[in-house]
């Protein structure tokens, strides 16, 4: 068994200590906004809890839980302006909800049903939302980095006031996309922010085995990109760091590499068993740094949240979620016709032929869906 972290986090920027006490300057956020951050984090945790249970019962195919990392996505999401873009690594679905992705679209994507905006062409748990400038995830590590940099550069060329915030994990800092992306962004001073969510483990590869560098933020130095270490379990620090980084990118001062130090409490995904490669003691250590408990204690201490109100909030979120799950689970399947649609304006003869053959085969084996008619040949 190996422990994940031996690289320095250089006294990460922190506003709330694990016990909820204030150790830095509080950001300019209203009471309602502060409670909203807690609600957003709590919603992510409720969703993860339910989705894993649905997956284990075979009701959805796959899920990657964000448990323990809620502050990274919610704190960051609140710092972005509506015109900004968020390029996801692989656990920022909660950020998209925070910025406008409707919960039923989120759940529809988990079921890959007829309401899934990806039309079942993505693996479940890989979201996209046009309305909140949230491009579809890629399972391929780091590809979103050069894409985001290019989009940021294009936005400036077109005179748009957009900042592109590009999320990725510690493993992606070893990918080609990271190096070319940071290099171009540094040279062009592209209006983007790199957010490295350092959660200790790239599936089963610990940070110890990921890099020989002293810190992840040091990796920006080679590209002239300033790095910053942040306590990723402090939602307010995540907010403030992203606020400053997006402001600076918006001013034309170029990108920053913001490292949000957190911990993946669960497996990499529903197909992973972390007990095979890591020590449970390490997980326990991080349990004490829980981002949601920290925010709860902070809000309770300053009187923004009544004692016990967090439990009511959780019940409310579960109820809202369960209603959506019931609806989406009963929704129709994605129509088979979509298999051959959307590539050509009109489905060409060879695809029609293949599709009709597919229907005949289905009919033969008893799986044909009655609502799908054949294409007229």
């Amino acid at each position: 068994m190996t422990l994940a972290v031996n690289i320095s986090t250089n006294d990460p920027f922190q506003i709330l200590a694990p016990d909820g006490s204030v150790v830095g300057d509080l950001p300019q956020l209203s009471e309602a906004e502060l409670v909203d951050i807690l609600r957003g984090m709590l919603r992510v945790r409720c969703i993860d809890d339910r989705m894993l249970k649905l997956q284990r019962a075979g009701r959805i195919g796959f899920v990657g839980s964000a448990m323990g990392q809620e502050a990274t996505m919610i704190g960051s999401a609140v710092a972005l302006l509506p015109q900004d873009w968020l390029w996801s690594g692989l656990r920022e679905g909660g950020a998209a909800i925070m910025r406008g992705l409707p919960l039923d679209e989120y759940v529809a994507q988990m079921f890959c049903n007829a309401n899934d905006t990806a039309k079942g062409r993505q693996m479940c748990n890989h979201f996209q939302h046009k309305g909140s400038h949230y491009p579809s995830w890629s399972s391929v590590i780091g590809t979103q980095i050069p894409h985001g940099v290019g989009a940021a550069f294009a936005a400036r060329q077109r005179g748009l006031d957009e900042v592109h915030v590009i999320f990725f994990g510690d493993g992606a800092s070893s990918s080609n996309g990271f190096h070319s992306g940071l290099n171009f962004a540094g040279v062009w001073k592209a209006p983007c922010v790199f957010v490295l969510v350092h959660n200790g483990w790239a599936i089963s590869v610990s940070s110890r085995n990921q890099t020989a560098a002293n810190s992840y933020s040091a990796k920006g130095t080679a590209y002239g990109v300033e790095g910053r270490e942040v306590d990723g379990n402090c939602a307010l620090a995540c907010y403030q760091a992203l606020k400053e980084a997006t402001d600076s990118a918006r001013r034309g001062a170029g990108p920053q590499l913001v490292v949000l130090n957190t911990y993946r409490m669960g497996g990499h995904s529903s197909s992973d068993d972390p007990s095979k490669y890591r020590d449970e003691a390490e997980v326990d250590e991080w349990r004490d740094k829980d981002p949601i408990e920290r925010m709860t204690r902070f809000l309770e201490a300053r009187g923004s949240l009544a004692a016990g109100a967090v439990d009511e909030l959780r019940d409310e979120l579960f109820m809202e979620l369960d209603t959506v799950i019931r609806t989406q689970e009963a929704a129709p399947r994605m129509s088979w016709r979509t298999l051959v649609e959307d590539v050509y304006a009109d489905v060409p003869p060879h695809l029609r032929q293949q599709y009709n053959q597919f229907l005949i085969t289905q009919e033969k084996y008893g799986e044909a869906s009655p609502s799908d008619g054949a294409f007229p040949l």
Partner: protein
Amino acid sequence: MTIEFKLPDVGEGVADGEIVQWLVSAGDRVKEHQAVVEVMTDKATVEIPSPADGQISALLAEAGDVVPVGSVIFTLETEGGATVAEPALAAASASGGTAVASAPPAAPPAIKTTTGKVLAVPSARRVARDLGVDLDRVAGSGRHGVVRRADVEAFHSSGAAPASAAPTPAPIQGSGGETRTPFRGVRRKIAEAMVRSAFTAPHFTVIEEVDVTDLVALRGRAKALGAAEGVKVTYMPFIMKATALCLARFPMLNGTLDEETNELVNFHYSNLGIATDTPNGLLVPVIKAVEQKGVLALARELAELAERTRAGKVKPDELVGSTFSITNAGNIGGIMATPIINFPDIAILGVHRLMKKPGVVAGPDGDRIEVRQYMNFSISVDHRLADGADGARFLAYFRTLLEDPGLLSL
């Protein structure tokens, strides 16, 4: 309604899972999302939750059973019909609200072929058979009146009485019948070990004939000596001694591949796994540090270990840690075999039947024919880690030692 809960694919591409333990009993009331059973797959051990509130009506697998993904492992009785059904079914039944293509009321009667057989697609025939529907009575909605699957289902659900409630035909059996035994336990472990070995290590086998006339004589004397001490001396301790001497000379056959570090490991000691036929199946207890032990000591240890192994009293740590193995089929029969390596060993020695044959013996007056005793030996080697010449050299030296067994004391 009743939910038949099928074991889901909880990883990406998991084929089956072993029931570790049930967390509920038949008759228990459960809530949606409550853990029902712990299942171990190739990837992880996970708790499977209930898909709905209800009462468990039956548990259909036992702890220890390996069940394929998709088989029903428990049934759940839910209140009313409105709760969540099997996901796929729920999705299908709700799909689009488009009417099922049921047969129109005034459909023409089914068209028969000249042989009097109704025209129907194969899936319709299968469904008709399963539901006990007489295809003659179903109006076909397909082209030229061909009966489709939906026609059969609509006919069945319309409440039309099954014409001939034919029970599912019994499987065809020979006069002798058959016995079905659950494939698990030691047999399953052996199967897994054999598959791993055969499909990981490309095997080759070298076979050698050894004149053991002198060994037979030596063993006869040793047997008498051992009997005085209460030790049964077989050929095996001599073979083990010779093997240890050979392994010291050809260490490339005494090792393993450490796939984690990508290193070839060669051992400076010989722990010999001895394949043993037991009432429970094949087990391979290990005798350690054979190179340091004499023939009589080996004979004593072997007899004791073999007896405990057959009695099922061998300890788990005595079944692991071999550096090389020996399998002896000779006392049963067969003149040669191609043994499968006791993976992750690199090689295994096969010992075959002792037999008298006419042999050519070199004497001072030239060659002559004598009645000699012979044994065949085979060695199977992992060709990833050693080559044919290594196996052949091993057997050549092995032969030298056993044909002149005085050399074993060297």
